[in-house]
């Protein structure tokens, strides 16, 4: 039976609940659960710095990626193009409100909130402006993990190009470049974020 004090030196696998002694990790090391094989804990290299820079890059790319036309088609002398935002406007226009809301959430809102969230967190850490509200903030941040679908949308762009290339002339616009860069920077910003480290720091700062 464990007492309150030695919880600090224990860690449980979040997938199978097996209990281990807390490993001392250096930057770049990770510990794996011996029972189910998933990652128990890891320390990422330069987490705050890297996540800060990637998320800043992502925020700069947001506007062009969302508003610039991604691709266009030409057929019988007529040309039409659409951006990510146009997709949602068209869906609302055609009366598919539910799809419009969901596509907006998965392809725009959640990635945007995640980018700004990662930026705000790393900004607070970089310039030492930790606030107790970050606890709530970072806790809420975890709920968005499954619902960002920029990568799926990217595959969607590729597939629809293949579909159109057969009987129309497809042209690629600047929006696609911005979108690909946004996808890369938002993925890197989230991947670089070291959750264990952030929680440990927040705990050291605000634990009662």
């Amino acid at each position, binding site marked *: 039976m464990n007492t*309150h004090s030695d919880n600090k030196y224990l860690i449980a696998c979040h*997938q199978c609940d097996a209990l281990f002694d807390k490993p001392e990790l250096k930057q770049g090391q990770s510990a794996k659960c011996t029972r189910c094989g998933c990652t128990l804990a890891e320390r990422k290299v330069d987490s705050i710095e890297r996540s800060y820079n990637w998320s800043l890059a992502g925020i700069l790319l947001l506007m062009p990626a969302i508003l610039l036309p991604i691709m266009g088609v030409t057929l019988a002398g007529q040309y039409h193009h*659409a951006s990510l935002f146009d997709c949602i406007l068209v869906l609302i226009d055609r009366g598919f409100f539910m799809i419009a809301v969901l596509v907006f959430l998965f*392809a725009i809102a959640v990635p945007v909130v995640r980018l700004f969230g990662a930026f705000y967190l790393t900004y607070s850490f970089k310039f030492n402006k930790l606030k107790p509200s970050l606890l709530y903030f*970072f806790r809420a941040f975890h709920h968005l993990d499954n619902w960002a*679908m920029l990568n799926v949308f990217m595959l969607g*762009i590729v597939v629809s190009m293949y579909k159109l290339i057969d009987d129309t002339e497809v042209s690629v616009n600047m929006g696609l470049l911005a979108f690909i860069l946004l996808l890369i920077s938002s993925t890197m910003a989230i991947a670089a974020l070291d959750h264990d480290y952030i929680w440990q720091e927040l705990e050291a700062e605000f634990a009662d």
Partner: protein
Amino acid sequence: MLTNTAKSSNLALCPQCHKLNDYPAYADKKEKVQCVRCLGKFYQRKPYSLQYTLAWNVAALIAFIPANLYPIMIIYSLGIGDPSTILSGIGQFVDQGLYPIAAIIFTASIIVPLLKIIGLFLLVYRVYTGVRLRPEKHSKFYHALEFLGPWSMLDVFVVTLLVAVVELGFVTSVEAGPAINYFTLTVIFTMIAANSFDPRLLWDKKQNSETFKEENDNR
């Protein structure tokens, strides 16, 4: 072999910040505790995990039927509409010889949702009965299901893009069909179902049956 788990030591892991908390024995299974680190409230195990998973799964299965029967997309060229369902859309790709794309769409919109629904049913059944439960294998399977979930949205995004881009008036235009609503619901429901499932139950069940066996052997 019995492993020491957080549950057996009267501890509980916070699902958000992964902090180990005391989980007093008097706290009933269905009682929330507050995490000392992130101040979030949580349960030791997701309550009614199997029931929720099963319910969302049934909902997904029901939504999957109209998703395949109604047309997902209607292509108008020179004023004549050509509706296509998910399956007939894949058929068109095969006719055109675009096998890789056909395979991608078939995987994302037919195989993955079905695999998720059947797989979660199987996991719930295995956890409930404990028959031939191999947690090492099943937890990997669960992770694969969880990872694949969002990729089913592929078809929805493709139709959205086509509707937005192909808008050349009378010459050609694309309309979304009613199936897109049901298909999106299927994907969302399976994602929620996978989220409701608690993979730690697999290990708990295994542990329980092993404890039971050991007690029987000792007798």
